[in-house]
């Protein structure tokens, strides 16, 4: 009797959330999967089933391949910068936990992560500006040669990696700090007595002990890297000023295919590929974690 009453309360209480969830998450996800098999031009009522031909076409589409490559380079590049940098920075900040500046360090490192994307990207855009930007000013001042940072396809990818890393760094530091705080103190004391210097403790203790955190931060950084959009949109305008054209990224290509080329099914196929990448990354993460736990 009481069990039944509890059951109906539970159902009633979770139902609104569940319905919203179904409506704004599960349905559009299913719709993405379905549309990826159709050809639909947005205007007509008819959707034509085309099987996997969207996917086949994608892998011969230079623009898409360009976008996929750029996105992957940005995602892995940002991860390669963020992981070591945030781990070392977190180690040093953790070391100075007792310092009266500890709060300042944590906040300062984290601010880039919470600042809105667009204003932050604006700031960097000026720094990278070829004609008026301070970066070139410094380079020229040091006797170097000014670089067309945002007008060169390779350099602009580098710039986007810098911007993305700058934003993710604070997140990485925060998670690593949690990791450091959860590590057993006595292990470090034992290592110290065994003769390990601070740097040796970091290499032989922290790095292996924080492996689960490293995996987690890597995957989070990679997944958010694969969804990069605003950064490229602001930084990499082409010569006519059209946003985001110089460095095509997946999300941009997807939105263009959908809303400018009116090929919704084709865009959905791109979304499915993005989804596949994310799922693969997650599976790899769990696989590596389990491998470690199974020893």
């Amino acid at each position, binding site marked *: 009797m*009481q069990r039944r009453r509890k059951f109906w*309360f*539970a*159902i009633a*209480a*979770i139902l609104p*959330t569940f319905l*919203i*969830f179904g409506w*704004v*998450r*599960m*349905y*559009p*996800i299913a*719709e*993405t999967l379905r*549309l990826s098999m159709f050809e639909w031009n947005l205007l007509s009522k008819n959707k034509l089933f085309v099987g996997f031909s969207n996917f086949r076409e994608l892998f011969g589409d230079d623009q898409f391949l360009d976008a996929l490559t750029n996105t992957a380079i940005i995602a892995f590049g940002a991860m390669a910068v963020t992981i070591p940098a945030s781990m070392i920075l977190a180690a*040093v*900040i953790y*070391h*100075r936990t007792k*310092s009266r*500046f500890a709060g300042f360090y944590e*906040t*300062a490192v*984290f*601010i*880039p992560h*919470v600042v*809105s994307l*667009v*204003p*932050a990207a*604006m*700031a*960097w*855009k*000026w720094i990278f500006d070829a004609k*008026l930007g*301070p970066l070139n*000013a410094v380079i020229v001042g040091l006797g170097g040669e000014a670089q067309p940072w945002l007008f060169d396809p390779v350099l602009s990818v580098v710039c986007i990696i810098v911007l993305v890393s*700058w934003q993710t760094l604070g997140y990485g530091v*925060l998670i690593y700090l*949690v990791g450091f705080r*959860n590590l057993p103190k006595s292990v470090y004391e034992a290592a110290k007595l065994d003769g390990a210097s601070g740097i040796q403790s970091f290499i032989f203790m922290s790095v292996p002990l924080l492996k689960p*955190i490293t995996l987690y931060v890597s995957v989070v950084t990679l997944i958010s890297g694969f*969804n990069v959009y*605003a950064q490229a*949109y*602001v930084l990499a305008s082409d010569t006519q*000023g059209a946003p985001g054209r110089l460095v095509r990224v997946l999300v941009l290509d*997807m939105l263009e295919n*959908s809303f400018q080329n009116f090929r919704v099914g084709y865009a*959905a196929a791109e*979304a499915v590929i993005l*989804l596949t990448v*994310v*799922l693969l990354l*997650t599976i790899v993460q769990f696989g590596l974690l389990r491998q470690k736990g199974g020893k």
Partner: protein
Amino acid sequence: MGSAKARTRRNNAIIDVLLFSICLVLLLPLILLIANGFKTPAEMLTWPPSILPQNPTLENFRTVFTETPLLRWIFNSLAFAILSMIAIVVTSALAGYIIGKFPFRTINIIFILFLTTAIIPFEVYMIPLYFQVKALGALNSIGGLLIGYLVMSFGIFLIRQNVIASIPDELLEAARIDGAGEFWIFWHIVVPLLKGPLAALAVLAFFQAWTTFAWPIIVMTRKTSFTIEVGLANFQSAYTIELSLLSAASAAVMVPSTLAFILLRRHFVEGISASGLKE
């Protein structure tokens, strides 16, 4: 060789200086952006660029507030972020509590459904979602924008974890024996005990909506309905020459939200750290 104490103190001083410099470098782009907001258009064109404004002026701020819909955009973003925050906190609190404390099979199945969709990025399904909003005729409205940000999988997990960790079954049973109704228990016992995580979730949800970009850029296409992020991004393609105006607008938006973050930092950190501990 100095004493061990002196050596440690010296090393720590070096580390502090180093950390200070790193923090400064990390904040430099934002400092420069704010500084640019106070420069005259002419000064923006000087070479080499100045770091601090030579003749600080408030003209840029006056212009962006009076001649552009900046205030309107800020209002749109605020309204959207606050409504999204409320929706996410309410749905997460209810669902997280039910999933954590009512282990029926139906509920577990629902939980698994939530779980499996959690890792799928918004960008994957935002195009079909756009057509749902369009079908409702809700494009260019806060309501339409909100549809994308009504629920948050992570929020549900966060609350579920906290419910399991900090609300003992005995407490609920005692209330039931005393004759309390289920909703009364949720409102008077569960919610007060979850104040910390709910606050953390609220802050996270607010900032998530405040900084989102891809969704509003496709849903809000009319100039008056832009959110601040979209507005600024379009600002840059439209007024590309007036870098000082752009900087002023960006700074006007960034400074208050950064201050809000510093004030709410503890909640924010709590929420974000919980995401890392999950694994």
